[in-house]
Structures are given as structure tokens and as C-alpha cells.
């Protein structure tokens, strides 16, 4: 009996060791390049001292604030479009548009199949002229490009709940369709909506090809141009935007959690 439990303990320890080893190796794989880049970005020219010269250099480049601002606004519009178009549409597909679901599923894959160049040149022509002349056309494209991911994030969330029964219950309790959507459907699938918005934000913040092809100056385009001149500065930019994105996504998830507690207290 005693040796049996001993053997079991040894077994679990061996398993723990193995999984920890995998974690450590994978961690090193991720961490070392990051560490090396961070170290490099902190070098002061040729001498062996370290400092934030390269980071200061970023802020001194013209167009920094302006391009960040543009990317922010484009991202914000893309997120809003996602909330207003994708969430209600996928909900409708689940509730009463079941027979169109397959078609839509295939449609949402198309942005992965059609080259971005085709989207940039072809789809842009389909836009009204005032949109073609505005940087915010990018938001619309980003919603389309992110669709394979955002659609699936929402689809999974909606499939996880007996949505038809929940909406029937809400309707029978006196909630109109709009109320049902805002007070029952949206809070129920809140984690999926947040996941979809994460993906939308991540894509909008980092998208380069479309912006470049359509000759819009966004933050990623600006980064590419600026980094041609200064190799240490380019590395500092890469590290900086990475940390910035992490902080942003972290804050986002925090906002999501905070909101949900507020909702429960209120309602």
C-alpha cells in the first residue's frame, strides 16, 4: 500500500517535471528573442552603456502622434461596426436564419482566400466616392478581413447557450426584440463579443498591407517607413508596440470584467 502511493507520487512528480520542462523550453523560445531585441533597443550607439535614446528617437520622428491617432480612430470605427453589424447578424443567423448559416459560413472564409490586393483594388471601387477619399474606408475593410475570426468567436458563444429558449423566455416575460437583444442575448454571449472585439482590435492595430496598398498612412505604415532609417530605433519601435498592444489588450479584458460586475449590481 505504502510503496504503491510512493510510486504514484513519483509518477506525478515525473509528469510535473516533464510538463514544466516543456513550459520552460517554450518560454525560452519566446523569451530570448524578446530579451535580445529589448537589450539591443536599449544600447546607446557603439559604446557599452544602456539607455532610452532609441525610444526618445521614436517620439522625435514626425507623424508619431498623428499616425497613432489615425490607427486608433480606424480601430474604434471597426470595433463599432463589428458590434452593430456582426453581433446582430450572427445572432439572427442562430435564431431564425439557420438555413443561411452554411452560406454565410463559407462567405466568412472568403477574406482568407481572396488576396488582399484584390480586396484593395476591387472592393474599393465598389465603395461610394466619399468613402474612397476617407481613411475610414479601412475600418470597413478591416471588418471584412477580420470576419473569419470574429464570426467564429461569436458563433461559438451563441452555440454554447440555448439561445432560442432564452429569447422565447425573455419575450414571454414582456421584453421586445430590442430589449431581448440588449438585456439577454448580448450579456449572455459577452465573453464571445469581447473575444471578437479583441481580434478586431489586434487586427486593426497591426494591419499593414491594405493601408499601404491604398496609400493611407497608419501607424504600422509609419513604423515601416521610419524604421528604414535607424536599426536600433526600429527595434525599439517593435518592442514598444508589442508592450503597448499587451497593455491595451490587458486593459480591455479588465474593462470587460469590471463592466460585468456593474451590470449584475445594477440589474
Amino acid at each position, binding site marked *: 500500500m505504502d510503496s504503491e502511493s510512493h510510486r504514484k507520487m513519483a509518477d506525478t512528480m515525473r509528469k510535473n517535471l516533464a510538463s514544466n520542462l516543456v513550459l520552460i523550453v517554450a518560454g525560452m523560445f519566446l523569451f530570448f528573442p524578446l530579451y535580445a531585441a529589448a537589450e539591443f533597443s536599449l544600447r546607446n550607439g557603439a559604446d557599452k552603456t544602456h539607455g532610452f535614446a532609441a525610444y526618445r528617437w521614436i517620439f522625435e520622428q514626425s507623424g508619431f502622434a498623428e499616425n497613432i491617432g489615425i490607427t486608433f480612430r480606424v480601430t474604434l470605427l471597426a470595433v463599432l461596426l463589428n458590434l452593430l453589424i456582426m453581433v446582430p447578424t450572427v445572432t439572427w443567423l442562430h435564431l431564425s436564419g439557420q438555413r443561411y448559416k452554411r452560406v454565410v459560413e463559407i462567405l466568412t472564409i472568403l477574406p482568407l482566400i481572396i488576396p488582399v490586393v484584390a480586396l484593395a483594388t476591387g472592393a474599393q471601387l465598389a465603395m461610394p466616392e466619399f468613402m474612397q477619399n476617407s481613411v475610414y474606408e479601412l475600418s470597413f475593410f478591416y471588418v471584412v478581413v477580420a470576419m473569419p475570426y470574429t464570426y467564429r468567436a461569436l458563433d461559438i458563444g451563441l452555440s454554447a*447557450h*440555448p439561445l432560442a*429558449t*432564452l429569447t*422565447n*423566455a*425573455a*419575450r*414571454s*416575460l*414582456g*421584453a*421586445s426584440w430590442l*430589449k431581448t437583444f440588449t*438585456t*439577454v442575448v448580448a*450579456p*449572455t454571449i*459577452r465573453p464571445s463579443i469581447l473575444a471578437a472585439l479583441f481580434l478586431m482590435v489586434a487586427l486593426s492595430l497591426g494591419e499593414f498591407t491594405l493601408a499601404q496598398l491604398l496609400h493611407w498612412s497608419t501607424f504600422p505604415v509609419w513604423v515601416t517607413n521610419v524604421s528604414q532609417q535607424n536599426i536600433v530605433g526600429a527595434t525599439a519601435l517593435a518592442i514598444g508596440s508589442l508592450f503597448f498592444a499587451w497593455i491595451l489588450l490587458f486593459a480591455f479584458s479588465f474593462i470587460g470584467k469590471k463592466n*460585468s460586475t456593474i*451590470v*449584475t449590481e445594477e*440589474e
Partner: protein
Amino acid sequence: MSQDSLVVKGLSRQFGTVHALKEFDITIPKGELVALLGPSGCGKTTALRIIAGLEKSDAGSVMLNGKEITSDAAHKRNMGMVFQAYSLFPHLNVAENVSFGLKMRKVSKENQKKRVDTILELVGLNSHHKRFAHQLSGGQQQRVALARALVTEPEVLLLDEPLSALDAQVRTNLREEIRRLQLSLGTTTLFVTHDQEEAMTISDRVGVMNCGSLEQIDTPDVLYNNPATNFVASFVGVMNKISSQLSDGHIEVFGKRLKAVKGEKTSGTVYALIRPEAINVKTNTTNPNARVLTRSFLGASSNIVCQLPDGTIVQSLMTSSGSGDLHPGSSVELEVSISEVLVTHD
């Protein structure tokens, strides 16, 4: 007429080529509990959903307290509904779930709290306000759903197989509780179920449905003892079907001449419809006409399954004390204890 809470006339609904509902009529007086009973696909849930406004009808009308509501949206009908599937809102706790309907009706906060407390007390969940659906058992979830449907004091309570997903024990308790609550609140209730025991035990009247139509609606006693159609006779309770010759309005079953009622023909081969409790099994006999297959002990009574020489299976319900000496394989004599019998031709 003003006493009638819910009046439904000529409801029809077709899905593709299937007539889910054909000319469905039902009238429910205030405070009555009516069950719609039928096999799956008989249209009972469709009828309920049309009454709730969750489904459209092709024809017919729904009147609530003398007011036509056929084309009103579901959320304007002031009906409470409990569903077969668990339907508590997962992001809200018990108290918030129950107060949902009150909030939609813009009831004041204090009033909401008071009514939620009262109704949760009534369904026996007064210490569960802060729990979420995933922290409750199936039976508790359905109690909350019931409280949520009743707290708004609906004109009609609609129950769509609310007990089907529950364990047998919980199911029995909860159905008694539904009846107790319904009687004390006096809520007009329409209860859809495929479980006849459920329907018969708690309803004032039971409507038996088949293929989209209401075959018969009456008290459980009348349905059982005086079924209007063959379908009702065989669907409600156990019914033996024994083949015999009809002549001159009479039929002979196990050597006894019985008066045939409700038959269309007066002669020829027909089936006599006889309840198990109307058949006696005698062991001490010189004239055996059947063989015992099994005897199932049910407590005070026992169910005895016999086979006639022509292969027909006959069930008998006897007191357990009176049937203790019946064993599989023994030859017995069957007798009927009635003098009138329902007959059918198919």
C-alpha cells in the same frame, strides 16, 4: 362568457406539407388548469406557442379575457411561460431572473423586491436569491422559472413540458407543487405534456390531441371511463383489445354477454376495449381460457399479463393479496366484471 379567460378558435398551422394544427379550438374558464396531452408531433406545443405569440398561425383567433390578441406580439400578451429546456438567464442570479418581467413592466425597485421575495418563498427557494443557474439543480431551476413566470401575475400560465427534463422523484413533487401554486393563485393554466399520469393527476380537464386536432377534452374521469374516440381509449391508460363477434348490439367476451356501446356496426368481427381492472383472473377453474405470462407486483395491486390461445395479450389489474397464487405458466380463467363495453372496428 366573461368567465372564460382564454378562448381559442380554429387555429391552423402548416409546416411545409405537414398540418401541425388543424382547426384547433379550446376554451379555458378563469382559474382552470387544462392539460394538452398527446404523442410527440401531435401539435400540442405548436398550439401553446401560437397562444404565447411565439409562433404565427395560418388561421384562427386567440382571445384573452374577451380581447382579441391574435396578432399581438409575444411581449404584449401578459402570459407567463415555463419551458421544457432550462431557460434561466445565465448572466443573472435567481432574484434578477425572477424580477426580469417586473423590470420590463417598470415596476418600482421596492415593489420588485417585495414581489420577488414573496414568490420565491412560495416556490420554496427563499434562501437562493444570489445563486446563478449553474449553481442550482434541475428541479430548482424549473422552480425559479415558474416563479419568474408567475411573479408578473400573468393572465394565463403556459407550461411547455416543464417537468420532462427532471428525475422521476423531483417530477412528482414539482407537479404537485405546480398544482398547489396554481390553485392558491387562481392562475388560468395551460399545461402541455406527453405524460398522461402528469396530465391526469393535476388537471381540471385534459385535452387529448392527435395529428393536430383535439380528439376529446374532459375531466380525467370521463376521459378514462368514457373515451370519445378509439385513439383516446387506447392513449389514455392501458386498454385491452379483445376480438369477438358482434351480433344484435351485443358481444360475448370470456363467456359473458356484454352490451356494446358506441359501435358503428351492429354485427361482424369487432374488438372489445376493456380496462385491466375490469378483468379478473381465476385460478381454481375447470374451464381455463388463458395462460399467465408474468405477474408484476406494484404494491397494493399487481399487474398480471396473460395470453389467450389466439396469441392476444391481456392485462389484468388485481389486488396483490388476491393474485398471490398466480405464477407464470399457470392456466387460468379470465372473467370480465362489466356489463357494457366499448367496441371498435379496427
